[in-house]
């Protein structure tokens, strides 16, 4: 399909790397900082090779001090830089939760608009790699609770490549969550792929019978489920939220006005996750459009167990999406 010369094959990992590289080339103020981003090449090899190109001042290895280097990123942003701070894994970000909520998210407001914080904080998220109870959670929906920050969840190569620069141009703090199961995903990207909007959800597949609302790694499971369902004449519309805060509800409300049914797929814990917020917004914005109650397929509410079979059971799977949609569509047609 992409036999035209001007696309290039790469992984999600490389797409993120290209985005960082381009940003660093474009803007002197941009630098990358985090544990092992330099000499080691990044815990998930995202920044491999960047140290050689940009040197240790701009690809800055930090000690294991999440709170201080996130705070230093905030300070550097206040001082006119455009830091990209990498936290290896979402669970470690809890060590910097104070800086994220009490400083990054509040500085603009408590200074009455004087000081904005143009920082980008990237981290890997999600289960699926058998990393167990301290490395596998999906807290992006949790962070989306905090006013003052934006929360991005690029799922596709295009978004991995295109949302970073827009995030850097944003005057306010932006958190980017990269699902760790996506790093090896391959695809074709236009050679001139560039910045993309970070404000809108996108319909990744159109359909008429049900709206699947999702993001991140669950997008692909939802698309796969939609593909299989289409063989049963059930056409699912699949919405990739892309950004969890601010949440673009218009896109899914509009879709529901057509499909009258919605299923949310989110690998985060169910209670109080982003899935709850989506369901509540549908309650508020599309109640009279609904033919059936909105359902949620979420991560099991458990600190992630190590063994594969339990981890698989703990995460949303294609089969569950299919059976849920099938039941929903069949039960009240």
């Amino acid at each position: 399909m992409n036999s035209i010369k001007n696309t290039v094959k790469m992984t999600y990992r490389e797409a993120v790397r290209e985005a960082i590289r381009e940003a660093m080339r474009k803007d002197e103020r941009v630098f990358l900082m985090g544990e092992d981003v330099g000499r080691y090449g990044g815990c998930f090899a995202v920044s491999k090779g960047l140290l050689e190109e940009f040197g240790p001042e701009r690809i800055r290895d930090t000690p294991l001090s999440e709170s201080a280097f996130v705070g230093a990123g905030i300070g550097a942003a206040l001082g006119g830089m455009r830091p990209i701070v990498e936290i290896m894994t979402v669970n470690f970000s809890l060590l910097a939760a104070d800086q994220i909520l009490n400083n990054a998210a509040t500085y603009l407001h408590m200074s009455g608009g004087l000081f904005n914080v143009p920082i980008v904080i990237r981290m890997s998220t999600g289960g699926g790699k058998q990393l167990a109870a301290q490395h596998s959670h999906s807290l992006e929906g949790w962070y989306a609770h905090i006013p003052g920050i934006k929360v991005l969840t690029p799922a596709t190569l295009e978004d991995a490549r295109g949302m970073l620069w827009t995030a850097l141009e944003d005057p306010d703090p932006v958190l980017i969550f990269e699902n760790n199961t996506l790093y090896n995903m391959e695809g074709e990207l236009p050679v001139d792929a560039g910045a993309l909007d970070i404000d809108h959800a996108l319909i990744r597949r159109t359909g008429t019978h049900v709206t699947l609302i999702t993001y991140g790694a669950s997008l692909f499971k939802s698309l796969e489920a939609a593909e299989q369902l289409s063989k049963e004449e059930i056409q699912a519309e699949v919405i990739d939220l892309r950004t969890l805060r601010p949440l673009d509800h218009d896109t899914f409300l509009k879709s529901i006005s057509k499909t009258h049914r919605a299923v949310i797929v989110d690998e985060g814990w169910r209670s109080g996750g982003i899935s709850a917020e989506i369901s509540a917004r549908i309650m508020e914005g599309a109640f009279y459009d609904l033919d059936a109650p909105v359902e949620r397929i979420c991560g099991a509410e458990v600190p992630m167990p190590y063994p594969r079979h339990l981890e698989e059971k703990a995460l949303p799977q294609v089969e569950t999406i299919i059976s849920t949609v099938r039941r929903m569509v069949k039960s009240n047609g």
Partner: protein
Amino acid sequence: MNAGQTPEPIHMARERDHNHHMLYQMLLIRRFEGKCAELYSSMKIRGFMHLYDGEEAVAVGVMQSLTADDAVVATYREHGHALARGISACSIMAEMYGKREGCSRGRGGSMHLFDDKTRFFGGNAIVGGGLPIAVGLALADKVQKRPRLTCCFFGEGAVAEGEFHESMNLAALWQLPVLFVCENNLYAMGTALALSESVTDITAKAAGYNIEAEAVDGMDLSAVEKAANKAASRVRSGKGPVMLECRTYRFRAHSMFDPELYRAKSEVEAWKGRCPIASFIRLLKEKGMLTDTELHEMEERIAIEIDDAVAFAEAGMWEPVEELTRFVYSDRRTE
């Protein structure tokens, strides 16, 4: 005034002016805090409010070593720092009232004074929370090769926080231009230093990071000024951060809610006997650099400045409630 005497040499006049300026600032802080306490009682000011009485020599002394381009990061006990940094009493008082003419547009209140013109980055009410911010500001300066420093004030209570340790290490490791100023007033709320640190000598901590540190009598303005100047020039020389520990005492309660069960009245009285303002006045008088009339005039000017500040705050406007959620995100999109 010196009519009939030989005219004073220029350097003496300069010194006198400088000293008068510093005395003015210390007195302004003291009177300002007194007025704040009053206004708190009459409910014009609300929330948590932490006064600086007794510690004036620290903020005023240290600020002398800074240039306009330097950055300042302070705590929730920062009225004194804000005043000494040159933020107007009017806009600080209006902030305390919560008026939109306040330096943080009324959104911050006593604990969150901000000012861009003087590069005053708060007003941070999370103990230790400002230290990493200061490290980052200094990093930005270093990388952008701007000859500036960042001065970071924090209480001795903050030394127990992990962020202190992480920030000291980062600043030293990366040789960043931070002047760390520990305001050691012996208590963190009701917790005496000996109950919060296994080693109560704060400068000893700095050694663990290879940071040059000096302790100075925080009740002695000249000593603070001298030590700060020395520390600041070392920071400016590019050799990395320096820590200055100022040993001081707060004369008032921790905040407006503190019954002060944890320290003896006699201890407070003894420290009041070492009031930095009274002793500076004594010193200046001894040196023949201050007359009673001058002092009196100074107090009058200060009284007017504070009256003006209160009037300004009283006359200020409330932010319209429609604007409640403004400044959650920036108005403009990019820059």
